[in-house]
């Protein structure tokens, strides 16, 4: 293959090193590179500093508990008075609520994004988009209050009772679906539902923009080949925007993992030892939010920071997992198909 830079005038192409030098010294490019690299480094610095802070400020707790902090056990103890702390109920709660919210939010957000990008009449597109972005702006406290006063009694409690009486009776699922649901509706199910409502706007808005940015040529080529609208969406748009969609989903997952206020208000805040989604639970961010301001002993504060550290590492691992998934899914899609 010809590796030399092409020349417009037909003269002998310049040597590689000269061309590279010229490019490197091009006015403005150096500072620009430095700036972008610098900002990228800043982001890493931020992540490292937070990780370091969490690591350092939990040293006593880590020394005191070791790995037994994480052990899955059905009678885990969280006792600020005696100084015995175990994190398993919170880890389970966070995992359960976040995954539940993803399972619910991703299909719905995709549907919304497809509707907004492809099917919506143009005059409706902007206002509807604004409405969804408004949903993203509602403070988490308001979600919590609405949850307690309206959503839980009206929707979650009947739903939970229904699920407990149907799925909760089946042999395999009874572990996750048995009742009884508390009368107030506070449960892991409530938290999962509220979280799914909270992360839908993020995933939907970004996915919509991803779809809107797919070149018209791609769509038209597919339609010209005789595909129906849905086939175009499913087989052309989705793979093309898969990277962006997964980015949106990861952002949504991040929000779900870290969401504090709304979850605390509806999750029940109780360590019961049951794995059921219909029972009250506790998440990692909730316990930190609930107890940090009033933690009196050093061990208590440090145990809470250790929970934050566990959450941090868990986010890291989940992201590695997601990235592997992207890599596997994206292997079949040509990356340079963009005209």
């Amino acid at each position, binding site marked *: 293959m010809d590796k030399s830079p092409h020349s417009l005038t037909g003269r002998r192409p310049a040597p590689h090193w000269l061309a590279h030098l010229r490019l490197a010294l091009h006015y403005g490019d150096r500072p620009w590179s430095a*700036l972008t690299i610098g900002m990228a480094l800043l982001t890493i610095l931020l992540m490292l500093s937070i990780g370091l802070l969490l690591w350092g400020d939990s040293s006593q707790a880590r020394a005191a508990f070791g790995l037994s902090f994480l052990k899955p056990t059905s009678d885990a103890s969280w006792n600020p008075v005696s100084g015995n702390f175990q994190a398993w109920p919170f880890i389970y709660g966070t995992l359960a609520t976040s995954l539940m919210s993803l399972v619910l939010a991703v299909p719905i957000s995709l549907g919304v994004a497809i509707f907004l990008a492809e099917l919506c009449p143009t005059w409706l597109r902007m206002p509807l988009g604004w409405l969804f972005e*408004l949903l993203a702006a509602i403070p988490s406290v308001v979600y919590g209050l609405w949850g307690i006063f309206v959503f839980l009694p009206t929707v979650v409690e009947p739903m939970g009772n229904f699920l407990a009486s149907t799925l909760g009776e089946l042999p395999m699922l009874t572990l996750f679906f048995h009742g009884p649901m508390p009368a107030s509706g506070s449960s892991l199910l409530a938290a999962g539902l509220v979280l799914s409502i909270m992360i839908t706007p993020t995933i939907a808005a970004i996915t919509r923009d991803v779809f809107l940015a797919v070149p018209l040529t791609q769509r038209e080529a597919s339609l010209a080949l005789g595909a129906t609208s849905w086939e175009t969406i499913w087989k052309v748009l989705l793979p093309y925007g898969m990277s962006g969609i997964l980015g949106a989903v990861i952002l949504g997952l991040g929000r779900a993992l870290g969401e504090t206020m709304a979850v605390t208000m509806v999750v029940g805040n109780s360590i019961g030892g049951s794995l059921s989604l219909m029972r009250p639970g506790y998440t990692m961010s909730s316990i930190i939010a609930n107890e940090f301001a009033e933690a009196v002993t050093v061990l208590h504060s440090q145990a809470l920071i250790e929970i934050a550290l566990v959450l941090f590492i868990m*986010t890291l691992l989940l992201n590695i997992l997601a990235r592997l998934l992207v890599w596997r899914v994206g292997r079949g899609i040509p990356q340079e198909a963009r005209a």
Partner: protein
Amino acid sequence: MTTGTNLWLGVSTRQMIQSKAGYRRRKLSNIFMLAITGLFTLLALIPLFWIIGYVIYKGGQYINLDFFIHLPRPLGITGGGVLNAIEGTLLLTILAGLFAVPPGILAAYYVSYKPNTLLGIVVRFGTDVLSGVPSIVIGLFCYALIVKNQGHYSALAGGIALAILMLPTIIRTTEEMIKLVPHSLREGSLALGSPEWKTALSVTLPAASQGIITGILLGIARASGETAPLLFTALGNDNYNVGKIIQAGIGNHQNIFTILGMIINQPVDSLPLTLWKYAQQPYPERINQSWAAALVLMILVLSLNILTRVWVQLRANRIHGK
């Protein structure tokens, strides 16, 4: 196109395309799936209208002009408002935007063009992990870094905490949007002799601007609704009033930098913070005010969204000569 068996069990793709029955099936499945997206949109709209309706219903009863132009008053004294919180929210949002948007866009630019370098991979990791950090932890981080060293709570610390919250959203969306800009656009600009930085600023970023603005607005929407990080950075301030500070500064013949310093170096309140504080208090009057504050916040963010979109649209129209 994929080969092999199709969604409709046992029917190969070739049969689907080439037979009349297959065509009917595809048509049906098309309508069915599109109807489902419509259904999902309706489903997603239900909580939206429900929550917004609830906030309007509960907050609308207690909102009045006083609410916007007065500072808080104790119980039993009428005419109190949340002016301090409104100003605080605006100030914190501006600060957060200033701190988050330029670094975010620049970092995203680097990552989108060099995704497979070590730095690119690590940065993408970093932003994803950062997006999962609970907001309260970010607050604690800023407390240790800024508040402790400055010796006081401040709007500056709050703005930085919110900026850290916004950063992953901005970086992620900007990166994805830049990647979706056709390569031909960038290469055309470079081929015409434009340097890399000029291409970025006048071709690539404007081409991706719709999505980037979505990311920024989403980030601002989230940041302006956060409470937990502000507890440890901005603290809250019932007597914060920018107008008063400027008046006092002018009265004392202080220069603009001192006045600016005084504006950003004091503890400030914000609408979600006020909401949270009031909602926890025993008094029905405060709880009513907290709903009214929620309504004000929603109006603020909606206005910001609409204004920004309209401004972008006008600018685009101007460019295209409409």
